[in-house]
């Protein structure tokens, strides 16, 4: 990173850090927590969609696995809650490894359909394995996040925001470090031209599996945070509605970038609340948003900024088309 982007990144981190102190409104703070968790999830899906170039319709299942893992471990076995996100990540990543190992043998639309199938299977199991998951009733009274001896009340949105923010920034940094490394370039090579990537010595399957496992593990951590924050989880977490939400965040924000999914999550969370009065019609708005983005703004909202900057930097085009 050169000096200017680093300053911008630091500025953004500072702004995010002071954000919850700008308002005493508990509802706005609640929205900030939701944003941070969704942004974390969107970043994880972005590894699959943006970096590997595959589409996964099963991502919400890993989010749900993380949430259930952490909730059940802390409630039934008394595992310390702060371990939850890490254990959720390990279990979700393990599922990701097995599913990815099978599904990544094929790529493209067929892979997307396979993930849809695996996601639906996990959703169904969660729904019907009542002894373990309490089925459609879901699990309630999940203990709020805690840090052991540090006596902070993480049921409070402002405190929880910082927990989620730490995870979010950590993952954002990992994504950045990854994409400036040789490993990250191998990801891009595999996305752009798998045959060529293979011919220069990149193990395409192993590379995709690597990315998929990392993405599912992060989704698991996000799910754990989500469960301990909302304190109620149901199998609906694994449903297509959440899959669609995550895909909208990544595509509308801008896939293949780090800022994009963060913006996408912000758009999603804000619209969700602003349109609450519209009821199920919200989904129509989201569908329209996604469609419009794919047609008019394939690079997502972040590409607006890039376009703007290029226009400012470029000399007046002499009769060239815009």
């Amino acid at each position: 990173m050169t000096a200017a982007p680093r300053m911008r990144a630091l500025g953004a981190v500072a702004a995010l850090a002071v954000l919850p102190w700008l308002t005493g409104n508990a509802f706005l703070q609640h929205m900030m927590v939701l944003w941070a968790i969704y942004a974390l999830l969107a970043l994880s899906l972005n590894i699959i969609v943006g970096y590997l170039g595959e589409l996964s319709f099963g991502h919400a299942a890993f989010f749900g696995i993380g949430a259930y893992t952490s909730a059940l471990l802390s409630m039934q076995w008394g595992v310390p809650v702060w371990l939850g996100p890490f254990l959720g990540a390990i279990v979700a990543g393990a599922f990701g490894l097995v599913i990815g190992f099978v599904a990544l043998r094929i790529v493209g639309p067929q892979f997307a359909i396979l993930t849809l199938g695996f996601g639906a299977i996990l959703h169904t199991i969660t729904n019907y394995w009542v002894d373990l998951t309490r089925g459609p009733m879901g699990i309630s009274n999940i203990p709020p996040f805690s840090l052991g001896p540090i006596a902070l009340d993480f049921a409070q949105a402002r405190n929880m925001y910082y927990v989620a923010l730490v995870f979010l920034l950590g993952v954002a940094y990992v994504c950045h470090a990854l994409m400036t490394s040789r490993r990250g370039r191998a990801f891009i090579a595999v996305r752009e031209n798998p045959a060529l990537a293979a011919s220069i010595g990149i193990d395409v399957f192993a590379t995709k599996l690597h990315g998929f496992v990392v993405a599912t593990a992060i989704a698991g951590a996000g799910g754990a945070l989500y469960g301990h924050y909302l304190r109620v989880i149901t199998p609906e977490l694994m449903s297509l509605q959440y899959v669609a939400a995550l895909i909208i965040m990544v595509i509308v924000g801008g896939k293949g970038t780090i800022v994009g999914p963060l913006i996408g999550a912000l758009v999603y969370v804000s619209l969700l609340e602003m349109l609450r009065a519209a009821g199920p019609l919200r989904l129509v708005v989201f569908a329209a948003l996604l469609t419009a983005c794919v047609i008019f703004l394939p690079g997502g909202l972040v590409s607006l900024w890039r376009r703007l900057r290029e226009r400012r930097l470029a000399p007046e085009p002499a009769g060239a088309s815009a």
Partner: protein
Amino acid sequence: MLKVRGLRVRYGQREAVHGLDLEVRAGEIVTLVGSNGAGKTTTLKAISGVLRASAGTVEFEGRRIDGLPPHAIIERGIAHVPEGRLLFKDMTVLEHLELGAIRAPRSAPAYRDRVQRAFELFPKLEERKDQRAGTMSGGEQQMLAIARGLMSAPKLLMLDEPSLGLAPIVVDTLADAIRNLHAAGIVILLVEQRVDMALRLADRGYVVETGRIVLDDRAEALLENPRVKEAYLGV
């Protein structure tokens, strides 16, 4: 060094290579010439593991390599520079070199030395090391594709149509580079449609027609062969 016996490769139902035999010995430049669709590229792809042969064997330094995945074959010391100088257009020269070094035999020199050698061979690339591949000229792109192949420190370099679509003067530079590589001890298997150029560079040549070797001789002899003259040299 490289021995191909009875190689058959099929795309779906259609067989493109019907039992091809080929040998490359240490210290040689060998060329595989023939017209479009003769099966030259398919043969290279089968050797480098990108395509799987339906029958036949490929031996490299006395060990079977057919059936190995491409990255394992690169680790044995075979690099394949694909036809049409396939590059990632948004990646810079240095990024390509880094990717090319993702697999290499254990005995390979240090990464920095390999970059240094690639730049010595193609000084143009050093001038453009931070430039994106998509913005470079055809000749520079071909140089980069070869340099990327060299980053895996190969013992055998397979070049597929390196002269394709390049200006004659650039082709000359390329021919010099191939001679330099050969002088540095890299064995070369060259696939070309520019038969005259390929045969002038090579020690030995094979002529491929419709998936079979039809002629196989020393390069000078092939240049004088009436059949080659008539079919490929247009004299």
